[in-house]
């Protein structure tokens, strides 16, 4: 068998499976204990400076914004961010000076809404360093490897491109077909943050809509913090245990944060706050505007409740719920 082809991307978040098993044995309690805490305490305890961080959700979907604002408020520094399609989250955290490195599947852009002024400025001036490139499926499968406790997962994408050359993947010959195949190294984030629809106080979490990468990510990360629209009784989990997307023994902290994904979308619950996202994209065109945004919405408010009041409070959130619920089939007769 020929030697594997190495690539030049920095290896982020990999551990020898035996080392990670030992860490799990010593640090993850299997006891079903009450894990409720506050956003402040969870960030203080589980998001240290210099950690490798990943967000549940995807793009502008189900992003744990209360935790992200708190990370900025606590002025966390030197975070390595997993850009597993990281959009609004990474943009704000870069603006807040929290992020120094990022491995990129997708970052510095807001999909249809345009590119990120803030994120691009940071990477083009060298404030933020890109450690390597990967694809969305590639990241997903790095988490799959970690969730399974194996050192890698094989994949057939990225081959032949500069994306793989700047990744931490290796290429071997498949011993059955003899064809080249990429091996994607496991990625164990130090901490992953999720916002979910429902969760009991032990951490058993339910998610409606697409689960995106959260199944694998939750099982890959060493520490997990969950914010939830609602804390439910354990009995509700017991009634349909097959709806549990994240079981309690993976979870380190649980916080009830209604509307905790604003201004991103909470599937089937409330829609994007397009006005607020547009506001951010506008003001973040300059460092001064970015700073002013944080003074207004992060440093200038004591907590997430006060932030929600600031962006329009209950009335605004009800509007966003209404937009989500409307979703009329487009008839061409009338604009929604």
């Amino acid at each position, binding site marked *: 068998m020929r030697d594997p082809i190495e690539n030049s991307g920095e290896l982020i978040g990999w551990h020898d499976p035996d080392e990670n098993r030992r860490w799990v044995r010593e640090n993850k309690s299997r006891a079903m204990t009450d894990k409720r805490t506050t956003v402040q305490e969870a960030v203080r305890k589980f998001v240290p400076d210099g950690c490798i961080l990943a967000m549940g*959700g*995807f*793009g*502008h979907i189900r992003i744990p914004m209360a935790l992200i604002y708190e990370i900025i408020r606590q002025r966390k520094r030197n975070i390595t961010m997993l*850009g597993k*399609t990281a959009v609004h989250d990474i943009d704000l955290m870069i603006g807040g000076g929290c992020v120094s490195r990022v491995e*990129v*599947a*997708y*970052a*510095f*852009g807001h*999909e*249809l*809404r345009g590119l990120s002024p803030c994120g*691009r400025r940071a*990477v*083009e001036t060298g404030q933020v360093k*890109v450690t390597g*490139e*990967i*694809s*969305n*499926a*590639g990241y*997903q*499968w790095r988490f*799959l490897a970690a969730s399974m406790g194996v050192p890698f997962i094989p994949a*057939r*994408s*990225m*081959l*032949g*491109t*500069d*994306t793989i050359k700047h990744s931490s993947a290796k*290429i071997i010959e498949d011993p059955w077909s003899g*064809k*080249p*195949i*990429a091996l994607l190294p496991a990625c164990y984030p130090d901490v992953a943050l999720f916002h979910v629809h429902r969760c009991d106080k032990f951490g058993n979490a339910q998610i409606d*809509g*697409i*689960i*995106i*990468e959260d*199944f694998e990510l939750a099982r890959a990360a060493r520490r997990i913090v969950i914010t939830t629209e609602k804390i439910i009784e354990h009995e509700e989990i017991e009634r349909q245990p097959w709806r549990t997307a994240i079981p309690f023994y993976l979870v380190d902290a649980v916080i009830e944060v209604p509307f905790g994904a604003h201004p991103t*979308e909470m*599937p089937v619950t409330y829609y*994007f706050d*397009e006005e607020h996202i547009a506001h951010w994209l506008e003001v973040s065109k300059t460092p001064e505007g970015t700073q002013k945004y944080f003074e207004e919405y992060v440093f200038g408010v004591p907590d997430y409740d006060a932030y929600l009041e600031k962006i329009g409070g209950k009335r605004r959130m009800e509007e966003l719920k209404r937009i989500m619920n409307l*979703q*009329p*089939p*487009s*008839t*061409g007769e*009338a*604009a*929604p």
Partner: protein
Amino acid sequence: MTGQPRYNLTELLACVAAGFIEDGRSAFVGTGFPVVVGMLAQRTHAPGLLIIFEAGGIGPRVPALPISVGDSRTYYKASGASSLHEVMSASQAGYVDYGFLGGAAMDCYGNINTTVIGDWAHPKARLPGSGGANDVGSFVWRAIYVLRQQSKRTFVNKLDFITTPGYLTGPGARERAGLPADTGPYRVITQLGVYGFDDDTKRLKLLALHPGATVDQVREASEFEIIIPEQIGVTAEPTDEQLRILHEIDPRGMVIGK
């Protein structure tokens, strides 16, 4: 003819792209333009088209244009609302026929750059990276590119970065690299015309010109030499019915208004 033209460029491109979709097949769509193309195909000649969104939406009846790839509208009245793992796996396993891609620049083999302009370590401009594009370009049977600003700056001899694979360095290169066999870019649609790839060289080849466009314009708007065959088609103009449906799909012109 006086007054407003009957259709704009986006509407033309949408109709052309939809025309490449066979019924009873499946397509990966991103947000924006590709959704419009998929929905147009469904509402005209390909009602049995299975639309799949990268973040997990499977076979939705898309009620209104989604803004994000994971938007609830991507699994509204869907057959499945699953995961990136599920749909990427299905696509790696050969279940996804079409995928739509765009990009900042393309070379003659259909390789695409969406990562950086300039040097990777010290970029002049940093772009978002692959996202799911490399996966789509690696896995689908027929990738369809829509690049509406064909010019010497977008059709280039050498890319700063190959984000997503076209035919790499030419015939057999995808297979030698380990990518799934018989895949690759199928059509490239620009503001000037429609292109395919030459069977022998896997280099870009003009297939048809849009109404009013010329071969000289095509040649002029590319750094690399485009293969110009003897026979060149002309793109069909959108029908009134197609235009009506497009306006039904996107009443506010979020996509087709551009």
